[in-house]
């Protein structure tokens, strides 16, 4: 079910903190405590180092690819309190913009759905979330939500672009009236939902309260044309919750516990079709989860490094428990 098709030796000199493929799944960006960001061409099972980006002065926590319609753009955020936007130009990657508007570690970056333009949300340990909007000629407009999460925002994740009142995007040429939303998770144990008001200001729309410890990651599920919105959140408390909102107008969200792990859960990631959730835990295990017909979340696979096969990882897991 899960088979390793490519092993990339990143040659990072310290811990890797994030690895993200681009829109097409052909290039891999990694970042590390060694302060570097690397980009590999991984087409056809290969690994060609395209770029080794230096510029951060601390561990780099996350990388995020912008939608390719804007070119080849990668954002990275670091403990050095900076967000760097890198851009490829004539085959060379260069720093295009540096955002130094945070007072503490920037823990998460996430690009808005491409329909909105180039907008980057950044969550920081200073508790603030900043939103960088590209306004042309190399200029970025910054909006900041102060005190979004006391003592730190750990994750930001945009809601998919959905036009209100319709289940599927209308491919009409008209400019749809999008409502921009994103979710954030922080050290106040909360997941918060933010919405852009008509005056362009960001307002807290909702607090999702279920975790008893830091929220480590949030992931808003991609839209698959259904009216239900789904958010996955994971926490230091070992729990992963799936939040769903069936009725956009009432905006009521209800949590369902996916699983309680024995250790911190660091990361959650939805598959493109939004039916599988990859959960990365502090026990260095990655598990895949799927909602069964009766609405329960079931683990469908352990993903084990190097070996990849399910049986192997299950065996190892049992050994560990013994």
């Amino acid at each position: 079910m899960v088979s390793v098709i490519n092993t990339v030796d990143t040659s990072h000199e310290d811990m890797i903190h994030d690895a993200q493929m681009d829109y097409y799944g052909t290039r891999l960006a990694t970042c590390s405590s060694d302060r570097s960001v690397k980009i590999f061409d991984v087409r056809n099972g290969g690994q060609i180092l395209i770029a080794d980006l230096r510029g951060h002065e601390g561990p780099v926590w996350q990388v995020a690819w912008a939608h390719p319609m804007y070119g080849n753009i990668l954002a990275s955020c670091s403990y050095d309190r900076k967000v760097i936007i890198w851009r490829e130009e004539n085959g060379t990657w260069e720093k295009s913009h540096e955002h130094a508007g945070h007072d503490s570690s920037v823990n998460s970056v996430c690009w808005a759905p491409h329909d909105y333009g180039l907008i980057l949300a950044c969550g920081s340990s200073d508790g603030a979330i900043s939103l960088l909007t590209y306004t042309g000629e190399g200029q970025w407009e910054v909006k900041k939500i102060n005190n979004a999460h006391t003592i730190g925002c750990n994750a930001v994740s945009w809601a998919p672009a959905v036009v209100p009142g319709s289940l599927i995007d209308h491919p009409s040429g008209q400019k749809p009236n999008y409502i921009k939303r994103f979710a954030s998770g922080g050290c106040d144990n909360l997941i918060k939902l933010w919405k852009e008001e008509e005056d362009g200001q960001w307002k807290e729309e909702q607090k999702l309260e279920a975790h008893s410890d830091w929220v480590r990651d949030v992931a808003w599920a991609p839209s698959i044309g259904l009216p239900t919105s789904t958010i996955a959140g994971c926490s230091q408390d070992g729990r992963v919750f799936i939040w769903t909102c069936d009725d956009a107008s009432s905006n009521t969200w209800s949590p369902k516990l996916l699983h309680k792990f024995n250790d911190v859960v660091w990361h959650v990631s939805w598959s493109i079709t939004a039916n599988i959730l990859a959960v990365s835990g502090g026990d260095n295990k990655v598990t895949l989860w799927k909602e069964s017909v009766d609405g329960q979340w079931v683990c469908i696979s352990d993903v084990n490094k190097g070996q990849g096969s399910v049986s192997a990882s299950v065996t190892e897991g049992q050994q560990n428990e013994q």
Partner: protein
Amino acid sequence: MKLKEVDRTAMQAWSPAQNHPIYLATGTSAQQLDATFSTNASLEIFELDLSDPSLDMKSCATFSSSHRYHKLIWGPYKMDSKGDVSGVLIAGGENGNIILYDPSKIIAGDKEVVIAQNDKHTGPVRALDVNIFQTNLVASGANESEIYIWDLNNFATPMTPGAKTQPPEDISCIAWNRQVQHILASASPSGRATVWDLRKNEPIIKVSDHSNRMHCSGLAWHPDVATQMVLASEDDRLPVIQMWDLRFASSPLRVLENHARGILAIAWSMADPELLLSCGKDAKILCSNPNTGEVLYELPTNTQWCFDIQWCPRNPAVLSAASFDGRISVYSIMGGSTDGLRQKQVDKLSSSFGNLDPFGTGQPLPPLQIPQQTAQHSIVLPLKKPPKWIRRPVGASFSFGGKLVTFENVRMPSHQGAEQQQQQHHVFISQVVTEKEFLSRSDQLQQAVQSQGFINYCQKKIDASQTEFEKNVWSFLKVNFEDDSRGKYLELLGYRKEDLGKKHIKEEKEESEFLPSSGGTFNISVSGDIDGLITQALLTGNFESAVDLCLHDNRMADAIILAIAGGQELLARTQKKYFAKSQSKITRLITAVVMKNWKEIVESCDLKNWREALAAVLTYAKPDEFSALCDLLGTRLENEGDSLLQTQACLCYICAGNVEKLVACWTKAQDGSHPLSLQDLIEKVVILRKAVQLTQAMDTSTVGVLLAAKMSQYANLLAAQGSIAAALAFLPDNTNQPNIMQLRDRLCRAQGEPVAGHESPKIPYEKQQLPKGRPGPVAGHHQMPRVQTQQYYPHGENPPPPGFIMHGNVNPNAAGQLPTSPGHMHTQVPPYPQPQRPQNGWNDPPALNRVPKKKKMPENFMPPVPITSPIMNPLGDPQSQMLQQQPSAPVPLSSQSSFPQPHLPGGQPFHGVQQPLGQTGMPPSFSKPNIEGAPGAPIGNTFQHVQSLPTKKITKKPIPDEHLILKTTFEDLIQRCLSSATDPQTKRKLDDASKRLEFLYDKLREQTLSPTITSGLHNIARSIETRNYSEGLTMHTHIVSTSNFSETSAFMPVLKVVLTQANKLGV
């Protein structure tokens, strides 16, 4: 950054890590007085609520105590993992007493909060620690070298770790080892530390630098390394922290000399062993790495000394410090801006002065920290090194194509192992496949399409069908690929032609026996009775009167026979009159059959008889209205029928070859979200499309919105399972819906085609700029400087050619041509083959798929990627391209050969001619008996019409100039209606009308319409010109009521529809 503060002169204890929410307990500190000189003591519990941005801490409970405290700790005793029981507060008092409190009772406001107390110690109890392995074990230290081990399960009788050390001294610190549960350390102001082994019940090692200046104020074990501990000195002459390793206990391993004056307290983070807090009489709070000695952080504090400092066990970034100015402050070491908080603090302070005026002087107390406020920069930097708890060690992220990118880092090695630890920093890319059955079925479908083995495929599906309905559907689909599909449809509906034919012949024979012999003589009576009158009329050639007379006398048979002789018009009128009179059960059916008004049947039959209606349509309907009628029936079933009938509508749509409606109907009936149910649908759709391609050379290239959505959903699913090539093949390729074009581009590139942009600047065309039409308030109007290094899907002012599929030097327009003419399209096929060009999809115009399968793709065209799907692209072969350019590609040939008119010119577009009837190659056995029926009988007529249709059309005459205005006016009106109509149903109606008006044009070409009708039509056209549709409708009614029904029935009803719509839409 300061988070909270409480104005208390107190000892502090955080709730255990398990506890949620986080509480901070404070107990009035012994040996300190605040400005009130109050000797009252209290135990208070505050909640740390970080979602509250103010500096206040919420007080949960206050308990007035008779004791003041030297030490306060909060143990997790009897706490379960859920934290339901909030442990036990253990306090060290002034008079040798240890008191156990129940914090949950304090919070509940209970009066009886003391669990137990014991005053076995001598002097103040300054040292307390809970064993982290056995939380019921508490160690305490007091004067006279007294150390007791308390078992909370049996609190009355403490144990001792061994004999008292000599000389007797105060025990200032005590700490359990963090790795080995039976090891305990104690320290005294004299500077000596003793390590006890409780199993041996004796001290095992004494640690001292013999300087006599170590005045131990703090002792802490290394969180990870069992043999290491630190000692802090309160002595201003030696304000150091010593790091000791018991494996080398003769001198300190490292000495941290970061404080200028004596250290009052230390705290080692359990979450990150590289973080040691210390506070001293130099009024500094430092966070250093005891493993290196480096100062990582200096907390911005006021000038007051702190005498107690604690990490929050649950929130590793939070710490609290108690200062001598009577305040407990809670800080975060992650830095951050205090701008938001500062204002509140000032507000709070100034507002609180009023009621904090213990001396009644009216003068507020000097604000101790206000001077700092201005001096202090509002931005507080975080730790120099990132704490361990924010270093994400593991991650897994999905990416396009069902790939999962994972990485993990072996747990951070302890500092000893750091040197030899050379980690491999690997990232793994895995393929995740979750829908095996889906993939294998998709694979089978692809194979069937590739091998053109549709009949086999359908048969397999029929055999495997679980339900009767499923079986029916597949049977219907299968019929499409067989000869005589209409006949087979009928069979499936339970009507066997052969049987009927036999019966028919039999009856004929029987009838013939009754025919009167034609040889005899007869009288011609011209008497005054009816017979006579008829005779007179006949003799004068006045058929009309004769017929009228017969009808009047109810001699129907005579009337009809006479009417036949009297010509078409008369016959039609007579038929009409006959039907008006006749009332038998099947009259309506006969009416419909004779009048060729199948619409009537379809529109008004009882839906329970849908099979019969469908059968009638199958038998009689003209090819060009066949689909529409099936559609109509399907629509009725769908809209009016119960759920069972609704599903049957699918069968009608299959007969009609209406893929779009099939999709709509199926989607309505089935839950389409599950991959397998989508697979169910796609299988049928793909097969039906193939059938339609085979039978109707045109019309296949257009993909409806709904179908396109389903197909792209399907392609998405396939892609998500890693079957990129298959996804490309299924993706509709002749649509300009942005989401599909995006998906195509994504799939192409995901396959590993060269990523344009970074290898080569030799892109043959200008890259797309940031699209102007993009939404997005600001960004939409600007572009990143030179970001347009690659073309993306077109948008805005560009006409949308789907030619954004980029591979090397392909002319971007090559794929963009709408396949209006297949031959044209292929002339633009790129000069070199693209192995996995999506044009090889199921949705291609027919010619593309007619490439003989024996054409294998040459080896050297294989891309380096393993192709997970068997789809080959025949386009790779130049020869096959040649073949494709010939319009009469192999498969149409086969159907052509069975077509009754083999002399048809090959390249001529047939339009409707080759539609269902033509395709089925209607065998002579079918049409013959009917033709041989009574001469002039309507059945034969129908077929004559059908058969003569091709020749007529091929030799189409132009519409006479004077009538051309009719065509242009009507078509123009329909276009106007179409452009303003919104709902799909109206659009379908209009489309249908546009087709049906061909009948009118044909009649105009043949000039068979009577002058009254044509002039009436011209009147209507004029009223359309003036947009007076109601007038047009009136004229319409007039024409219909005055003209011969059979002459106008083919087009007048639709004209009415158009006029009505135009009136409604007000175009």
